[in-house]
């Protein structure tokens, strides 16, 4: 239902009486999400450090630049200290796993400039065996973000003060946010952390993927009350009424 172009709300249909004069090819209005926004950083980079970053990509009012890992630190230093860019704040640093691509991890740096009111996203690709230079010399706040990216994705950062796990336990095996890491985890690796083994109670899965006979049987065996009650009893209706039903118009 929601498409990329923001449709005007219903209620303004085009007048049907006048037939269109000629079968014009439908000219799609330019997507507002792809509009070009003004940002001084790409131009400044082109002037001072030519060839280091890609052409800017615009989406939803955001600017994305792609940079090779070799030039990353240089570009970051420039963006941090150049008066026209002056990105003082590293708002976020994170990575994503693309297992099908040659260089597996995409790492993004969300920069914000308080002086100029700008935002910029730097993007770089790094393979599984390679490592990225740490940006902690430029923004010391990258410390924990890089630790998090190392912990959850296994990206190595060179020059980081102490690259150890931050969210997962120290003896955890594997990096959970990789796409080949199964959602429930590797049971054989993490026996210590399985609550079912600790509490010695098995978990009843009634999720719809496992539904059908099994879920019903479990409940029937235990309670014997599956199925409709004998006679429909008088159930007092709850007082409310609205409970979120009269939504919208």
């Amino acid at each position, binding site marked *: *239902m*929601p*498409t*990329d*172009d*923001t449709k005007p*709300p219903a209620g303004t249909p085009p007048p049907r009486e006048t037939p269109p004069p000629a079968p014009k090819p439908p000219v799609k209005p330019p*997507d*507002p*999400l792809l509009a070009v926004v003004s940002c001084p950083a790409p131009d400044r980079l082109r002037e001072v450090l030519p060839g280091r970053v890609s052409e800017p990509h615009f*989406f*939803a009012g*955001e600017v*994305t630049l792609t940079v090779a890992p070799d030039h990353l630190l240089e570009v970051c230093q420039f963006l941090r200290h150049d008066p026209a860019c002056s990105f*003082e*704040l*590293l*708002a*976020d640093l*994170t990575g*994503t796993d693309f297992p099908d691509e040659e260089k597996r991890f995409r790492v*993004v740096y*969300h920069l914000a400039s*308080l002086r100029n*009111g700008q*935002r910029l*996203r730097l993007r770089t690709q790094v393979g599984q065996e390679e490592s990225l230079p740490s940006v902690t010399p430029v*923004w*010391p*706040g*990258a*410390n*924990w*973000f890089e630790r*998090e990216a190392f912990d*959850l994705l296994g990206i190595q950062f060179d020059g980081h003060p102490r690259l150890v*796990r*931050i*969210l*997962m*336990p120290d003896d955890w095996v594997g990096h*959970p*946010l990789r796409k080949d*890491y199964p*959602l429930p985890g590797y049971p054989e690796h993490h026996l210590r952390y399985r609550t079912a083994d600790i509490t010695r109670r098995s978990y009843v899965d009634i999720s719809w993927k496992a539904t059908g006979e099994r879920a019903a049987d479990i409940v029937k065996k235990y309670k014997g009350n599956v199925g409709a009650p004998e006679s429909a009893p008088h159930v007092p209706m709850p007082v409310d009424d*609205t*409970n*979120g*039903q*009269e*939504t*919208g*118009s």
Partner: protein
Amino acid sequence: MFRTQEMEINMGPQHPSTHGVLRLKLRLDGERVVDSWPVIGYLHRGIEKLSESKEFIKITPFTDRMDYVCAMSGNLAYLGAVEKLCGIKVPEKAAYIRVIMVELNRIASHLLWLGTHALDIGAMSIFLYGFREREMILDLFEAYCGARLTYNAFRISGVPADLPPGWKEECTGFLKLFRQRHREYEQILTANRIWLKRTKDVGYMDAEHCLALSVTGPVLRAAGVARDLRKDEPYAIYDQLDFDIPVDDGCDTYARYIVRMAEMLQSVHMVEQCLEKMPSEGPLMGMKGRRMKPRKDEEIYFAIEGPRGEQGVYLISDGTDRPYRCKFRNSSFANLQALAPMVQGGLVADVVAIIGTLDIVLGDSDR
């Protein structure tokens, strides 16, 4: 001659003043903190991993469970990101309702901070007062969306229900009462000599260091930087509201107290304006149906000003109705980095004050 020996102790994870399960390894030289190493992750629930396997619409309840003190902000940040990714417009009335809820929740969050922070330092009564008013806000939320802590009060492209009858009056009454009560808190604390001694020049961090460490929110504003995303990058309907950004240049715990107290009053002011300006009629949802179809291979970052700082959501879409990657940039996580430099060289007793002043929620930082 006496010789001091450095000692390493653990504070937490089950310490009442760590506001959750934060473990702090402290190296002490007598009463002085030589070094510290925060250990987090005890509340890690893998929300980002889980989100990758769910549809956009199903992720909202998880965002409640990250920053459970201000769940409305979490909802708004996530939904704002989805709406930005798919280019969905939110009807005006829904945007007003969202802002009312978020600002009320900011008051509730700051009240919880005030109560627990003061309790850690030793002021017991303000804790009870703060919770008394917070309870009223939770009652308002219960009347609106039915939940008191994990609200899930908004949906993609709007809000599910209108304000119930009588809610506006109840809210106006509360705001009037709150202004009085706010004066009461200030009487108790602002000029209190013990409070001043425990907070002045404790946890000093200036603007340059705050920015270098990615610290945002009231901590940054208390260092003299007027950074507020509601003004700098207005989302929802904040550009139609009239409000100030409280700034203080004390850079210490007391300045953060001043800033947060002033922010509560600003929020009251904003809610009053919203109640007045809100259109009485209008649609509540911007789209029909539940199917989302974002553009393929695009990424967006959307940030709002939560009560603790910049609360961002980074989404990558692969053209389906599930996010390929969903990363939550939570302010507690970034702000916690400032803990180690702040406590260094200070007294052990001040560690408690500094944890309080950073206003961390461990569910927020651990995800």
